[in-house]
């Protein structure tokens, strides 16, 4: 592979982190230029999981391309599918029935919880605490079981369709979700005891990887990464979709801009997701779970953009249609791509251990970046 590394000064050491590495959360290749132990420059090399999804979607129908996005950011698979379904519905002017809207929001929030749980376990493992990994997966299995009963799969659920959801909720869904909420509330207190107030954890996270307000906007960061620097950018609040406009929940905004602030924002987001699920779980309206649509969908000529808030940030779907059965061009605006571009800026002057902590709090999922 002919990889060009930018020029270095004498005495600099160039080190490869990845692509196969336990802490890179996928296949991310970082070329780090070090002066002793201090990082001078971090260059991400991408493309090790570039599966040409955008080209592939140009030959898939509007019903088929939605499920490929499950495989992009696989930890927010429902939310990605939701974004695609919203874009198709925008193009075809389909009205989604109220029951389907509430079901979609419930699934989204459960997915957000599952994603943050895995983030918490994996991040703690990266900085050296091996036990929280097992705690996180124990709770994640509870959500996977709830999803599996209704949707049929644990990770890539393929549940959202243009017009609603594919199948109605399982009769056990409400009861199991309520049990889960009570169960997980007590576990969140446990998480705080284990990790949040831990002296070693705090000293590894506080003051590390500072991202200022202006930089967060300039680098295009979104989601918890930007919120920890003070940027208010929750799509659910700014451009509400489905029933988010009727719900009362807060957008946790941090002030520190460092790793500990990003950590705190995500922990607060987990609590807010629980509160959203509680508001909805007893008020699921009766009715249809899917609007009537034609068998073959053809979007009219034009361009459509829809955005949703995944666990990582703003996920945008941009469809250019020429009136045919397949899209002419699809662009997926992935949150991780912009969040990663801020990594170099955040990591300069730190050590490699701090770089791992920063990557852990950025919550990168590399197939989302590479598409």
């Amino acid at each position: 592979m002919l990889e060009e590394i930018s020029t270095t000064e004498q005495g600099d050491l160039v080190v490869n982190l990845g692509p196969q590495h336990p802490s890179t959360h996928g296949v991310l290749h970082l070329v780090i230029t070090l002066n002793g132990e201090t990082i001078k420059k971090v260059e991400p090399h991408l493309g090790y999981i570039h599966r040409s999804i955008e080209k592939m979607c140009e030959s898939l129908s509007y019903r088929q391309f939605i499920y490929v996005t499950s495989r992009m950011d696989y930890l927010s698979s429902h939310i990605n599918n939701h974004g695609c379904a919203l874009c198709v519905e925008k193009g075809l002017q389909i009205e989604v029935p109220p029951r389907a809207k509430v079901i979609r929001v419930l699934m989204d929030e459960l997915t957000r919880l599952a994603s943050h749980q895995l983030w918490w376990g994996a991040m703690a493992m990266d900085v050296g605490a091996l036990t929280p990994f097992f705690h996180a997966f124990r709770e994640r299995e509870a959500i996977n079981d709830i999803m599996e009963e209704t949707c049929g799969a644990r990770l890539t659920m393929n549940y959202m369709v243009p017009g609603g959801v594919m199948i109605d909720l399982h009769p056990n869904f409400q009861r199991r979700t309520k049990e889960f909420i009570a169960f997980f509330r007590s576990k969140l207190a446990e998480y705080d005891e284990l990790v949040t107030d831990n002296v070693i954890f705090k000293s590894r996270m506080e003051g590390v990887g500072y991202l200022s307000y202006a930089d967060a906007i300039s680098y295009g960061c979104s989601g918890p990464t930007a919120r920890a620097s003070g940027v208010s950018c929750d799509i659910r609040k700014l451009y509400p979709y489905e029933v988010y406009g009727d719900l009362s929940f807060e957008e946790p905004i941090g002030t520190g801009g460092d790793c500990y602030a990003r950590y705190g924002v995500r922990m607060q987001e987990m609590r807010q997701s629980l509160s959203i699920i509680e508001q909805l779980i007893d008020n699921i309206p009766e009715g249809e779970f899917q609007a009537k649509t034609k068998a073959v969908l053809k979007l009219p000529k034009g361009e459509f953009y829809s955005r949703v808030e995944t666990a990582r940030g703003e996920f945008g779907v941009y469809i250019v249609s020429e009136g045919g059965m397949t899209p002419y061009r699809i662009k997926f605006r992935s949150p991780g791509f912009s969040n990663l571009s801020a990594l170099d800026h955040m990591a300069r002057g730190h050590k490699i251990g701090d770089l791992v902590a920063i990557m852990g709090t950025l919550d990168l999922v590399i197939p989302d970046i590479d598409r």
Partner: protein
Amino acid sequence: MDVEQKHTPDQPVPPSATVPPDSPVTPFPGEVHPTAGGGIVLSKLDEVINWARSNSLWPLVFGTSCCAIEMMSTAAAKYDWSRFGFEVARATPRQADVIIIAGTIVNKMAPVLKRLYDQMADPKYVIAMGACATSGGPFFYNTYSVVKGADHVIPVDVYIAGCPPRPEALLHALITLQEKIRSGATREQIKTNQE
């Protein structure tokens, strides 16, 4: 190893006679000959080595995309794979026995995979997990960068279907690999026997 005293001391007893038929325990291969003052186990060295190797396979941490999450779930507490000997997942290929290719392999990643495989010490085994590693999976048609199956790059012993496969499917594949090793049918062993 307890041996029932109902038989005459001259007749050897295979250890599997003392183990219930559907027990998950894999008995030590060989025959037990009870003699005065203890017992003698007679076995073939190959079988003993295969038994030891199969019960202590250390996987390499190698997950590229979604299947890696199901692999992590299999490693976690509910579907624990360390019950079967896959206790320590090593980060370096020099210390690993089995590479579980969890995820899609693309053109840019293929030389990296080959290099990792070459760095592993013999005997090494490969499990292709999920549809992408088996044949390219959902990314088979109209993609310019996906390798249509990890066996274009390295030889594979066990394939798992699914997108992603359930943790139970991965456990089944791990047990299948163990049985394959014990019966001497992996590519590694066939190659060694032919030499």
